[in-house]
């Protein structure tokens, strides 16, 4: 299992995460990221990591649990 963490102070609303994984991320009315699904499985890891890596300001991290 992995946990997705978002640093709302770093997020600038680039929305690259939404482009890559609209099932895991959204942008709210504050124009910052919302993690739709915080805990993910090993099968979803590559998909989630792609979204994490696509953040231009490194606002997202994936932590093994």
């Amino acid at each position, binding site marked *: 299992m992995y946990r997705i963490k978002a640093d709302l102070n770093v997020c600038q*609303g680039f929305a690259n995460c*939404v482009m890559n994984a*609209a099932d895991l991320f959204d942008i709210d009315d504050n124009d910052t990221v919302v993690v739709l699904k915080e805990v993910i499985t090993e099968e979803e890891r590559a998909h989630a990591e792609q979204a994490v*890596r*696509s953040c231009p300001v490194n606002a997202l991290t994936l932590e093994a649990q």
Partner: protein
Amino acid sequence: MTAAARAVPDKVVIVGASVAGVAVARALRAEGYDREIVLLGAEADWPYDKPPLSKEVLCGHSDRVRTSLITRDEARELAIDVHLGLAAEELDIAEREVVLADGERFGYGACVIATGATPRPSPWPLRLGVHELRTVRDSLAIRERFLAGGPVAVVGGGFIGSEVASSARTLGLPVTILDPLEAPMERLVGAAAARLFTDLAGRHVTELRLGHGVVAIEGTAGELTVRLTDGSTVKAATAVIGIGVLPNDGWLASSGLLLDNGVVCDEFCRAVGAEDVFAAGDVARWHHLEQAAPERVEHWTNAVDQAGFVAHNIAHPDDQRPYAPIPYVWTDQYGWKFQIVGHPESVSCHEVVGDLTVERPRAALVYADAGGRLVGALTVNWPRALADLRRGIADGVNAEGAARALAERATAGPVKT
């Protein structure tokens, strides 16, 4: 099965250690690839990110942003074998080897070409005071010139030129953008949105000299004269040239690969005619299943996203995924965030949600095709709308309905100010 099943390669050699190359290496590990990865970079500097070069680095705010793409420690942790400082000179497909400038040869099971792009050769000799911008060294040299004072002439009003102009204005320097086109951003974003960029430049007293080409840049640093096709001149202390880039595919001339404005690839980003060679980022021209002509995209998001598909297709030979993204780019200018998704350049029909005339708009231009379907959008300081419209494009929703929904959201306004 008609052919022998493809095996997972025992070694991946990535040529190019910038945004796409580093992303391929990282994504291979994320995909569970546990064999050898070699990352070759022509520049001696450790891999660094490119978007800050035209913004934070020029303004002296490098400390506010991420500039490293991968550190020595991260590379060691991920078991990525990084070789920096020598360009690749040859790809020998028969021997499956990449040859570096010093003759060293790297054998590969799969090779990823991620050599990016290089500025279109400047017709005006580069020298102290006349600069192009691609590397961190270019950026630091321009910053030094900016600190010596203005005025600044920016030749080319595309993304890079506009961002450099914005940074120079932030530093308080007088700036003139010169471009032979009347609306330099038009090719990228369509006519209506292009006006938005010229209006914004005007608000910040960036002078625009549009519709005339540059004939010559004479003089020395601090005392340059830029001569235009209409006979007029512009004085500048520093000139920055931003007239586009060309794919770095020259080193592949002897490889036998199909090169045509980049490395021509199939929908899986595999080089045409070479089983074990892939391309990602600015150098890749691939068959996008939803586009008539092969695509080559010169933006950060594409480099990272395409890298992910390449890594997946290398690590999972039995699960090949075509790369067919909805295009997405952003640009930050004068403190405004522009986000462009889909194909706004392809259609003229659009609707504006929000008021673009206020001091800091929160607005969206919504584009429909002839059938009224949402096909593109440009948002201004409104990431939430961008995310909604991106989903709408993927779902093929009606543009008018999407615009109406956004208008309702706009009146609700942001939660914080």
